[in-house]
């Protein structure tokens, strides 16, 4: 990990992070993940689908699914050890300094509560606003994510909004308290392609304006190229490569990254033949990764 130039002042630092199921000894899901995210940086995590993609983001947020634990390692935000934080401290950080844009906007909003209620919860809790102030802020936030008729949307229930609209609401909520770091877990996969681009542009815009760093988890290299400053490529829970985005696309150093690029369709080169990632390569990498698991046993 010392082969890249990193500023010393990382906002988020993950060191040698191992995560494993509680019940299965000696089998890891994250294998010594290390990465650093500078303040205001959009850091892409490229992981293939179905490989516990959300795990890293959830580990940072401290909401791992039950049955999975952090076996080893450290996560620090601004020098503060997140894994050692008390539940109370963690709640104070979550939503305020550390926020999330969820993967599926269709299920991330409570179906029986109006948008206004869901947005103001969070403003009142963290910014100590009263109901009226919180409503005014919520309206301004919706305007900032380019929702026209913000007042009307506030009075609506989630089912009355389209997926793109819901994702805008959720993004507005994530950026509401100007957090230091936002974990975006595939925020565009559940949306159709035209909406995807708008949402990416929106995230980028809010991120620049608030100086927020983003941990952008995705399986889509096309999305990475559009939005990320730096990229970390993960496979089988292991970091394979970490580089600035232009450098990565210009010259991928790891054969897996190169293979992944050949497997990704590109708008600017229609008709180009795609090759799937060779099974032998994936298999070999998985075996290598699993060989590391004895550390845990």
């Amino acid at each position: 990990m010392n082969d890249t130039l990193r500023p010393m002042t990382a906002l988020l630092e993950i060191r040698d992070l191992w995560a494993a199921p509680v019940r299965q000894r000696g089998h890891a899901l994250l294998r010594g993940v290390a990465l650093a995210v500078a303040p205001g940086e959009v850091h892409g995590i490229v992981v293939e689908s179905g490989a516990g993609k959300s795990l890293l983001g959830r580990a940072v947020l401290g909401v791992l699914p039950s049955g999975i634990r952090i076996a080893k390692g450290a996560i620090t935000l601004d020098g503060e050890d997140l894994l050692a934080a008390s539940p109370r401290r963690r709640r104070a950080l979550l939503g305020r300094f550390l926020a999330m844009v969820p993967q599926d906007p269709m299920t991330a909003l409570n179906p029986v509560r109006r948008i206004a209620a869901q947005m103001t919860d969070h403003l009142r809790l963290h910014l100590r606003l009263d109901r009226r102030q919180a409503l005014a802020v919520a309206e301004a936030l919706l305007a900032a994510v380019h929702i026209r008729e913000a007042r009307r949307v506030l009075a609506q229930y989630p089912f009355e909004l389209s997926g793109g609209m819901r994702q805008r609401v959720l993004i507005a909520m994530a950026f509401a308290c100007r957090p230091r770091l936002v974990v975006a877990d595939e925020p565009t996969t559940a949306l159709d392609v035209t909406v995807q681009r708008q949402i990416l542009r929106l995230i980028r815009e809010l991120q620049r304006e608030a100086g927020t760093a983003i941990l952008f988890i995705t399986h889509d290299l096309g999305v990475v190229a559009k939005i990320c400053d730096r990229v970390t490529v993960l496979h089988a829970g292991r970091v394979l490569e970490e580089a600035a985005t232009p450098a990565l696309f210009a010259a991928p150093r790891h054969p897996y990254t190169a293979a992944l690029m050949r497997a990704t369709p590109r708008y600017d080169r229609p008709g180009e033949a795609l090759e799937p990632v060779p099974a032998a390569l994936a298999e070999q990498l998985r075996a290598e990764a699993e060989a590391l698991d004895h550390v845990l046993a």
Partner: protein
Amino acid sequence: MGDERTLIAAASGAARLWVGAAILGALVAASLVAPLIAPHDPLDQNLLNTLLPPFWRGGADPAFPLGTDSLGRDVLSRLIYGSRVALIVALVAASLAALLGTLLGLVAGFFGGALDNAISRLVEIWMSFPPVLLSIVLVAVIGAGLDAVILAIVIVDWTRFCRVVRAEVLVQKAQDYVASARIIGLSRASTLTGEIIPNILPLLIVLLSLEMGIAVIVETILSFVGLSVASDTPTWGGLIAEGRLYINQAWWLMALPMSCVVIVVLGFNALGDGLRTLLDPIMRQ
């Protein structure tokens, strides 16, 4: 086509809602103004006019539209007064059972672990007793009377609420929006009150209205076997028990209170169904 089906479902849901509400409205009205609308004192005996037939049969007396019983008491007045006991039991017993069951269900579902285990096993043991037998034994032990009947229904029926609420809390707990609420920094308590309870409320309202119908049936059974309120207060179960003796001469003595029970229970069920359609966010969508 899907839209059409939803519309039809919604329309018939609305119809059921209105039928249920109308029946219950009539029940509430009858018990509130019983002294005003009952043509006679329900306890007034008139031994010259015993076992008079109801109005649709020959030999009926217009002063007694639904006839008289073996002691010459007016059946219509007794039915109207009987609705009071039915209504009180339905409202109070079902609400208390809902309160107790919901609290335990929330605790079990939300906190899980050993607490959930203890509560769930208790519910299972509880439900393995035959409910009617259990309530009869309970009333026999506690002693007869309205409060004993209510207590018996609560003790027997809280498990319905507990089981359903627990299961629904488990479902809700796994929803993304509950996770999202945690991620914006809400405490566990505020996730429970702010996210989970509003989502189980529709279910609870429906269950409650169904439970009221069940409470009416249980009260009828208990008063039928003479374990409900004192025997000088008319109850539908009591009327059925009295009518049973004259089934060969005057079948309507039994059929009339039975119809009351059936109509009221159908009313509660229709209301529950209608509310379900109305409150279900998916149907609403």
